[in-house]
């Protein structure tokens, strides 16, 4: 005999609505963003002029690296460069 009725199943389906697409996309792009950050930081460590250029405009540096300059990513780059 079945213990789950339509009401229970529909309630459970409704408990997991989709997360906002932009959030999902940002999380999905994490590996590429991390690679872009790593490359930028590596170059900045090796080249003081480049480092100054990146620090002057973090968003542009990220875009040049093919990374979407979301606030969280920009902040992470700032943190990484300040730790150098």
């Amino acid at each position, binding site marked *: 005999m079945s213990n*789950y009725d339509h009401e229970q199943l529909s309630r459970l389906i409704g408990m997991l609505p989709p997360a906002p697409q932009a959030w999902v996309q940002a999380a999905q792009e994490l590996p590429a963003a991390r690679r872009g950050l790593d490359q930028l930081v590596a170059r900045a460590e090796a080249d003081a002029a480049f480092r100054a250029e990146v620090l002057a405009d973090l968003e542009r540096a990220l875009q040049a690296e093919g990374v979407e300059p979301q606030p969280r990513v920009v902040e992470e780059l700032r943190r990484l460069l300040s730790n150098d």
Partner: protein
Amino acid sequence: MEAPGDDGEAPARGPELIAQASSDAALVARCRAGDDDAWRELVERFSRYVYAIAVQGFRLGQQDAEDVFQDVFARVYERLGSLRDDEAVRPWIAQLTRRVCIDRLRSGARESDADIDELPELPAEDVLTALEDAFDVHDAMAELPENCQQILDRFFARDESYRTIGDTLGLPAGTIASRLSRCLDKLRDAFEGEGRNTPPTPSGGQVT
């Protein structure tokens, strides 16, 4: 007129559902090997779960929930290598999400000078248990014909109207109700076929 039993015939692609295309262990292994597609699949698979724990379980506002959501997946990405049992990725992510939510609540309480030992709005265990059941139901949905998945998800999880669903899937709006009923029957069979036959207790209450 609606043809009986045709729930799976029309190729209706649309919103991503929780689809277990590969086992959790296989997915984790691929992520660990640097497979970006696997990572995308992992995020897609667990995004609703993480979101629901934050918003429904811990009742976080959208801004806090977004921060938690991104923090959780960042930590998953960084720490996937330390996961001991790849099949246990789901409880691991759930635990991680709960921890990040509690940190967020503590941080908010600290900023507002509230007593951080008295966290507000901690979820009742049965809410979190119900979310696990909900995840299992969505997993079972992945076994249904594509149209059934779409109709059930659009109506119950996305709150779309019969008309919107009908327009999107190319179905007469007047047939949606009967299709929903048939799809729920199929879902029940799929879900209980996995050995699930005990409904969760209703959610409510709070723990401290």
